[in-house]
């Protein structure tokens, strides 16, 4: 399910399936996208931040088009204890690899992988990012 911002419209609440994972997409070329994500985070229930939220930063192939300061993004990841992934949507290989990665994370968040919970996976990702 794709949305441009949160909260999701309440009219369709009863039709919506359970949400297992939220990926916040930030386009490094648009400062507005960061602001939008920051505003939308306020509408997310706290239980999601136990491994069911991640930040995906796109457009990283073009350092020279960067409109967002990276410290702000790292800070976001820290404050919300969620992993930050990077990708370049315009390159097919990276796009496919990122999609596979997200799919894997979604499987874990939905509980389809026995023995790995969203929370344990989240802390695994966090400790490897800090190395």
């Amino acid at each position, binding site marked *: 399910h794709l949305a441009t911002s949160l909260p999701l419209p309440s009219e369709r609440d009863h039709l919506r399936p359970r949400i297992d994972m939220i990926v916040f997409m930030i386009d490094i070329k648009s400062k507005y996208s960061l602001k939008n994500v920051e505003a939308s985070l306020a509408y997310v229930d706290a239980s999601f931040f136990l491994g069911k939220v991640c930040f995906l930063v796109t457009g990283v192939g073009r350092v020279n088009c960067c409109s967002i300061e990276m410290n702000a993004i790292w800070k976001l990841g820290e404050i919300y204890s969620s992993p930050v992934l*990077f990708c370049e949507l315009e390159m097919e290989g990276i796009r496919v690899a990122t999609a596979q990665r997200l799919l894997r994370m979604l499987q874990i968040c939905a509980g389809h992988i026995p023995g790995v919970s969203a929370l344990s996976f989240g802390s695994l990702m966090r400790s490897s990012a800090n190395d």
Partner: protein
Amino acid sequence: MSAMESVDGAVRTLPSIGRLSRGLLSRGLLFGGVHGRVGLSPSSRLLPPAPPSQENVDSQKTTFLLRKQWTLYSVTPLYRFSDTHLKDYARLLSAFIAAEKQKGLAVEIGVELGIKVAISSLPDLRGSDRDQAAILVQLSSRSPASPKNSEEKVIWSGWFCSVSGDDFSENVPEDFTCLPLFLANGAESYTSIVGSWFQKTFDCCFRRLAISPLNLSWMAAMWTGCKVDKTASAMELVFSVPHLPQPLDISYAIHPEDAKALWDTVQKTPGEITQEEVDVFMDCLYSHFHRHFKIRLSATKLVKVSTAIASAHCDGIIKFLQSQYLTGVLMLLTELAISQIQ
């Protein structure tokens, strides 16, 4: 296709200033060799010292640098370059250019009789004694139409410089000279000939230096705060709107006094600017624009910044407009060049 939107000087008090929340970021670390991550910029920068009342940069010598469009390059350290051999280098470069012309690579036919090369040092263009003095290369020629003894016209200029690049030059081995910033004005064909001679002779590498929207917004903030004697020209920001079938540019002109007034309310410590202050300044301008035109500039790409001090374009093109702030702007550009090299 372009849309010109300008905000007139009647709006003097931007009422949103008082209601802005200051945010969590405290004064960050000074720029100290943190490189390599995507888009990482320092959380704070020191402002260049205010120009002294008696200028130590002789404005006459540097006037020819003003009001010209310079294309920016980053240059890796030069191996075995010596500023005592400038005349020899000029001779060698001249011979190289003549050879290239014979090969048919210099494009303009019949315009020049002969290209003269002059390489000189500009000792005043540096941040401190630890910086290497700037080196100027000029190509001049006489057109066939003018009389024999007439003065030669400069057809191409390029200069290497380093302002406050000592962090970088300190870590470089003995035989290398650090002049990480290169600025060129003139035909691209000459830039590539001169560039390839330097690359071959001193084993260095030239790369176009682009300026990201993030760094352009730093420039907008830093330059707005500078005091200018004469009536300053308007501050202009140009944005390019992505994802449209036809390219659209938005030009946002701000009265310089309004911009300075806004910046003065934002900046806390004189002599230092933080990322947070730059963000607040730009957000203020963006929300002001949004209130009037319902366009979110933060979703567009900032491509050009023009102030009374200088103007910069994201493709790596700069124009200096005030000689007193020349070294200040060069200091920032040197920093950008160094981070591109590392």
